[in-house]
């Protein structure tokens, strides 16, 4: 798979369709994002493991606003870019997306609904794997849910890993770092449920289910289960799926005429 990807990237660079390609580079046993500008470097190009490339791209585009960049994207990364473009963080017109479908093992590991981008260049489209926890939690009684989340969030060490790993947390100053909302210093775990409820609300209209928060969490809190439930609600309430359509405005910032509440 990586071999095919290298050929594709080298082709793009040779033809001059892009100035550089953003993907992952393996070196010294690690994988990190890298901007490939010449064909010589391509032998180090790899496609896995998954990396939050959405954190890197806005910086690169700010640095090189005129460059035409190729980017290797998975399904969730493509959705991320669409949401970032809506919020003025990146310019989609300056990008050439190289679609990479996840393998069924990867889809299963992430419990991803949609493990493929809209245009697949590399790999085969595999079926999505629903998160079984979402179903289990929807069936729970109120008290049971509260107990469940109280236990989960008691593990939180307030490392802000979820926030830092989230490619769609784009605010310059974060409310979770303001002492009016979250006590600063060694208050661990943070006050239940303020910290996590505020974060869940803030990601409601932007979470694209990329699972980066959960992968970053050292306490293994099932954050994407909570965000997944909200994602489902956004679809039910507004017919809105984050990352689907770049022209669709986030419903929480528009008036009723722009995107009305759907009749339940």
């Amino acid at each position, binding site marked *: 798979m990586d071999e095919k990807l290298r050929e594709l990237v080298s082709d793009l660079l040779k033809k001059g369709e892009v100035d550089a390609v953003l993907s992952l580079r393996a070196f010294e046993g690690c994988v990190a994002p890298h901007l490939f500008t010449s064909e010589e470097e391509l032998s180090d190009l790899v496609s896995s493991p998954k990396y939050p490339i959405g954190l890197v791209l806005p910086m690169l585009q700010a640095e090189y606003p005129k460059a035409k960049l190729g980017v290797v994207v998975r399904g969730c990364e493509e959705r991320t870019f669409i949401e970032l473009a809506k919020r003025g963080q990146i310019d989609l017109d300056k990008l050439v997306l190289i679609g990479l479908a996840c393998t069924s093992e990867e889809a299963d590991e992430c419990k991803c609904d949609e493990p493929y981008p809209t245009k697949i260049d590399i790999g085969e489209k595999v079926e999505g794997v629903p998160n079984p926890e979402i179903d289990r939690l929807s069936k*729970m009684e109120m008290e049971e849910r509260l107990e469940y*989340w109280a236990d989960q969030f008691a593990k939180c060490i307030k490392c802000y890993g979820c926030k830092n790993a989230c490619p769609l947390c784009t605010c310059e100053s974060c*409310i979770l770092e303001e002492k009016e*909302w979250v006590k600063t210093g060694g208050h661990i*775990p943070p006050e239940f449920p303020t910290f996590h*409820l505020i974060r869940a609300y803030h990601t409601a209209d932007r979470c694209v289910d990329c699972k980066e928060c959960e992968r970053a969490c050292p306490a293994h809190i099932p954050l994407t289960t909570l965000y997944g439930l*909200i994602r489902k*609600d956004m679809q039910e309430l507004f017919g809105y799926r984050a990352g689907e359509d770049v022209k669709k405005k986030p419903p929480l910032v528009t008036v*009723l005429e722009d995107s009305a509440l759907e009749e339940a």
Partner: protein
Amino acid sequence: MADEFEPNILAFCCNWCSYAAADLAGIGRMEMPTNVKVIRVMCSGRVKPEFVIKALSQGIDGVLVLGCHIGDCHYITGNHRTLKRFEVLTRLLGHMGIDPRRLRLDWASASEGDRFTEIVTEFTNTIKELGPNNLADYHGRKAARVSQ
């Protein structure tokens, strides 16, 4: 007789409609429960969902958010946003296991003192049924030793 539970209720009222409605109810000497503490905001759109989350986590038993009727907002569309946000927030509270009935969004125009009284009475009764908010008991809960 045992002491009846007296809930602590916070009401966010917008300056142009519902606060005036509260005023009218007061001037009209209308009877209503005294559990509600009113906070005046310029528009119901000013009420961030975070306000509600914080209030509930600090032990407030119920939160009322009152604005102008849709279409009557002094800022034209302030309450549109409130309506949408609170729909999402209500669901979110439910997912967390916090009874969504502890939050109520409603509308009362400046002439509807009686409507204000009605909402406050109804809401106070609902919260009395639900009992005290015990979220504060969960503060400082320690993590159980679990694998994963």
